[in-house]
């Protein structure tokens, strides 16, 4: 024990850090900030450190070459003791990181912590969020599988739409004319050197400002932020009703960080690593690429936007969103901090959460993607085939053979790209059915060239049977009138 003390004293005589560290640790914070709401920033930091450790461990085995990356992931998954677990920790760690950073941001926003004098802390935080998302995307690319390969293609397609410089940005992104080894090397450099370096620097800045300016006090309704008086009021608050950060508040951070790490360890062990999915072979096209979960909302948005609105929304939307976030502390730098007095702020958060949640949920079972194997894999349910004539059953066969089922569901089976056809005969008359099948329209391809007249007849005969028992199918009212004998025939005829 005495030896330890002597070593400590020897070190501090040379480092001269102990006093500074003690002062930093024991700096007074407002009493109410020792709260479970104030633990997300430190948890994000702990997960980030975890990502650095597991990242370095993965780099020991991973080969950043287009030809070998996928094989090295297989080696990690199957041949090295606990290689799969390090991959799982890193993969799930990235999900945790994105989630915790977002929660931290929401808390900071609702508690008005971005207001004077912490504007720059918020702005640095926005950059940290963007870098975290950059890490998430580039990390997905390093898992160089089919999803990653086509994912970069999607990134390139989006970038190509930027006016004038678009094609150049694609070349820069890919490091060449196609997605290949140079692309992976670029993303490796970004994911392992560039973005982490910037992250560390910005986290340092972020923490320094938290220490220098003090943690945001618990917002009280009616306690208004004024630039002229805030700093004095804050110092009075910490002096009058403050507690030292260590141990007054830090134990909640420690406890929460421990819980996060434990959850991460369990989740990683239970669910295992992400992929890799199929080999990144561009000539294997039997693939349906999906982004990782934090970009699922974007995947949904891209299929739900009208085509004409897509490019402007993709190129202008993020710029406006980021600009708004950056300008937020300047637009609303003073005034009320409490969420109880900021209904629009609360509603904004709710709206964004509901929108992102809905899009993410939709992307989990995407209704806009055709089910590519429904025509051969999902049979037509029995109730649509019982007591049908030979012609109608032939039509059902055409329905399968011509891949109608890929986009149209019957009895909840098949694609949801187009409307379900369970009751189509109630909505369209036979003539309208023929027109729709042959000419398409309303986001349906025209089948005129690919259906012979007998095939069309059979298909429409089948479609005519798709109505609930007891409800008559739609019919053309004018036909009925035309068929009825007219009481007073027109006096003149064209014949």
């Amino acid at each position, binding site marked *: 024990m005495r030896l330890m003390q002597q070593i400590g004293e020897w070190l501090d005589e040379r480092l001269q850090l102990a006093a500074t560290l003690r002062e930093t640790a024991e700096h007074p914070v407002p009493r109410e900030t020792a709260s479970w709401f104030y633990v997300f920033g430190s948890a994000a930091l702990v997960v980030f450190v975890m990502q650095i450790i597991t990242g370095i461990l993965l780099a020991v085995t991973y080969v950043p070459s287009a030809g070998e990356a996928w094989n090295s992931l297989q080696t990690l998954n199957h041949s090295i003791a606990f290689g799969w677990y390090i991959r799982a920790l890193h993969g799930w760690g990235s999900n945790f990181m994105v989630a915790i950073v977002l929660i931290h941001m929401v808390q900071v926003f609702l508690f008005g912590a971005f207001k004077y004098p912490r504007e720059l802390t918020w702005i640095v935080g926005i950059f940290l969020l963007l870098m975290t998302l950059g890490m998430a995307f580039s990390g997905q690319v390093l898992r160089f599988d089919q999803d990653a390969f086509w994912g970069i293609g999607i990134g390139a*397609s989006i970038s190509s739409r930027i006016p004038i410089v678009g094609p150049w940005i694609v070349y820069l992104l890919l490091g060449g004319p196609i997605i290949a080894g140079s692309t992976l090397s670029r993303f490796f450099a970004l994911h392992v050197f560039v973005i982490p370096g910037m992250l560390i620097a910005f986290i340092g800045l972020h923490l320094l400002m938290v220490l220098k300016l003090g943690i945001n006090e618990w917002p009280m309704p009616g306690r208004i932020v004024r630039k002229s008086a805030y700093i004095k009021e804050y110092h009075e608050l910490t002096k009058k009703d403050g507690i030292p950060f260590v141990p007054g508040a830090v134990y909640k951070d420690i406890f929460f960080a421990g819980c996060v790490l434990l959850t991460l360890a369990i989740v990683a062990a239970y669910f295992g690593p992400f992929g890799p999915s199929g080999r990144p072979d561009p000539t294997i096209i039997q*693939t349906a690429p999906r982004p990782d979960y934090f970009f699922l909302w974007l995947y949904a948005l891209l299929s739900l936007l009208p085509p004409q609105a897509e490019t402007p929304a993709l190129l202008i939307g993020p710029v406006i969103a980021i600009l708004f976030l950056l300008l937020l502390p300047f637009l609303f730098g003073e005034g009320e901090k409490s969420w109880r007095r900021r209904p629009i702020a609360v509603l904004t958060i709710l709206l964004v959460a509901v929108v992102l949640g809905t899009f993410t949920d939709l992307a989990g079972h995407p209704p806009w993607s055709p089910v590519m194997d429904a025509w051969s894999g999902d049979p037509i349910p029995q109730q649509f085939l019982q007591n049908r004539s030979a012609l109608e059953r032939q039509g059902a066969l055409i329905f399968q053979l011509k891949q109608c089922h890929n986009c149209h569901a019957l009895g909840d089976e098949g694609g949801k790209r187009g409307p379900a056809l369970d009751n189509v005969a109630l909505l369209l008359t036979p003539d309208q059915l023929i027109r729709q099948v042959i000419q398409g329209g309303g986001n349906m391809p025209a089948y005129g060239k*690919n259906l012979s007249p007998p095939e069309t007849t059979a298909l429409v005969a089948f479609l005519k049977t798709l109505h609930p028992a007891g409800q008559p199918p739609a019919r053309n009212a004018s036909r009925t009138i035309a068929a009825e004998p007219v009481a007073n025939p027109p006096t003149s005829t064209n014949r």
Partner: protein
Amino acid sequence: MTLPDNLSRRAMFVKLGILFNGIIATLLAIPILRYVLAPVRRARKVGYDTWLSIGSLEQFPAGQTRLGTFRNPDVHPWDGKTAYSACWVRRIDEHTFQVFAINCMHLGCPVRWFPQSGLFMCPCHGGVYYEDGARASGPPERGLFEYAYKIEEGKLYIKAGELPTPVSPDKPSALVDMSGKQSCA
């Protein structure tokens, strides 16, 4: 030599030193930027797009659409399978072809060919194209990208080597060599 009062000898040396480093930094920036921007500069040279063989004509029966593969011209030994790309080859008749990029012109996912309904379908956001590559439905704003092709000595060549994106020039002029004997590559 007289100096202004506020500029001491040492202060001047500091400024000279900064200037000196600035000049060196500018000089070093040239090779660094050239290195970083190399893919953009190379793109403007010839060689990205080259005539590439996708196999003999017998592989592509008339009236059918089949998957063709080719090796890209600008590749490295460590590119593995990513050195290859695929394309859809539609042989209309003896001498007329259409060669489409497999990338959907919405966001680049690989489209699949369904001969029964004569449609290309994209698994990502549901873009659909007719057999001639024209847009049928879904979010794409244009038809499939079409490679220029030529027939030479019984082989089908396409001009390729670059990832087609939605802004790639539409339908390059197809260069068809009908004689099958000339070698003018």
